[in-house]
């Protein structure tokens, strides 16, 4: 093969062609970023991120490791404050939540996060749900009980744990623990749920249950999910954003990303023909 025949995506890596979806004005936007840049020290990890997320939809962020997708997700509810400098605006309900004086803890009640590895507290299943509520001064037992049932039902875990609410959360399987963590997040009645590879540490059946739960949850919440599993992104999300080397190269409806993406790098990535 001559050098000229070796035409693949890396030849135009320097300035790859970008395609960013313009969310139509009639769509209701839950959260949006404007000119977002994230620096780890001097290193620019994410540049030029302008994304709007439609309310009550699931948006997947896909891309290789180091592409900036998790950095982006964590910046959305200020998880990166201690480790990175996040520039630009993050608009939520008309408020720039990237502004330094924002009450981050209050903001996180509205924008919850679920991590890759299930991290239930070493407490009972019930207390995992009620802990944060109690921290916020809620003591009414009837209300707390109601929230325990409501959250566990929404996370599709209630039927499996309703008879053992006082058992340790650490006794749950990985998939159950992850659904408990989701229940814990939604007990705070957030608007937006951020999930960082929530199913990647789970077996296929547990993973399918999480996906099913997310499809149910999107009736009430806006969901943004980082996933390495492209089939998962394809199956459950309404929109998909493709991150590459710290930039968003393509953002569109999922069915378009997976049938006729516009950017060659996206085609290579979703084809599994990357690098």
């Amino acid at each position, binding site marked *: 093969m001559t050098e000229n025949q070796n035409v693949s995506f890396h030849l135009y890596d320097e300035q790859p062609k970008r395609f960013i979806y313009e969310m139509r004005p009639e769509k209701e936007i839950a959260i949006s970023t404007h000119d977002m840049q994230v620096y780890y020290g001097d290193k620019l990890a994410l540049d030029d991120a302008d994304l709007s997320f439609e309310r009550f939809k699931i948006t997947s962020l896909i891309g290789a490791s180091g592409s900036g997708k998790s950095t982006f997700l964590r910046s959305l509810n200020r998880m990166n404050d201690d480790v990175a400098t996040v520039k630009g605006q993050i608009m939520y309900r008309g408020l720039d939540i990237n502004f330094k004086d924002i009450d981050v803890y209050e903001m996180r009640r509205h924008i919850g996060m679920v991590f890759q590895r299930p991290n239930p507290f070493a407490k009972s299943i019930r207390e995992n749900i009620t802990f944060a509520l109690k921290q916020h001064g809620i003591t009414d037992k009837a209300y707390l009980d109601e929230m325990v049932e409501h959250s566990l039902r929404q996370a599709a875990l209630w039927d499996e744990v309703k008879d053992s609410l006082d058992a340790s959360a650490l006794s749950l399987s990985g998939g159950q623990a992850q659904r408990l963590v989701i229940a814990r997040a939604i007990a705070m009645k957030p608007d937006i749920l951020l999930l960082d590879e929530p199913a990647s540490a789970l077996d296929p059946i547990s993973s399918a249950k999480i996906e099913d739960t997310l499809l149910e949850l999107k009736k009430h919440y806006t969901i943004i999910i980082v996933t390495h599993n492209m089939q998962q992104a*394809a199956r459950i999300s309404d929109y998909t954003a493709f991150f590459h080397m710290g930039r968003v190269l393509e953002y569109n409806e999922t069915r378009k990303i*997976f049938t006729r993406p516009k950017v060659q790098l996206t085609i290579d990535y979703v084809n599994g023909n990357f690098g």
Partner: protein
Amino acid sequence: MRRMFDEELADLDTSFKEMGLLVSETLEQSVQAFLDHDRQKAQEIIDDDKAINHREIAIEKKTFEMIALYQPVTTDLREIVTILKAVSVLERIGDNARNIAISTIHMKGNKRVANIEEKIGQTGTMVANMVNRVLDFYVNDDIQGAESMEGEVDQVTQDTTDIRGMAISVMEKDPDIVTAATDYIVVAGYIKRTADYVTDIAEWLIYKRTGKIVELNPGTSSYL
């Protein structure tokens, strides 16, 4: 567990059945218009063929999307593949209905032969019934029904071969009939092709349920 795939597949299946209904109605009307020498109806059928083609494109697009998004395997894959293959067959049946309509218009003012037209009418009606039946088998997921269609084309082949023979013999006697009789042969060909397509659908139906690709129409002999 509820899957998005199942919901979308159910929608796709409904679209396919609706298209099937439309195509079978069109074929019946087209045969009838030919017998009635109803050029106006024939023109309507020609104009409406686009609607069938658009349905085919929409269904194909949806199947491509579902394959890309859900990467179906085993029974899911077969359901999708069956619709993808059968929808093209349906569209071709629609094309044959349109072609018969074109012949109906083309025959304007020509001399006719009543007994040949009667034979075409009988054969056309028989094939239109086959289309209806195979779609019923599809709707009811009736494999035995689909398998029972094996060999049914033979009768159609026989009939259309007869039509050809009849047409040739009248042409030999009367040159004025050549234009009309040529169209009889052509229409008989469309009817024969349609019957072949019916067995194709039956074969895909069997594939969907069993995973086996079978041949219900060995295609032994046909002049058309």
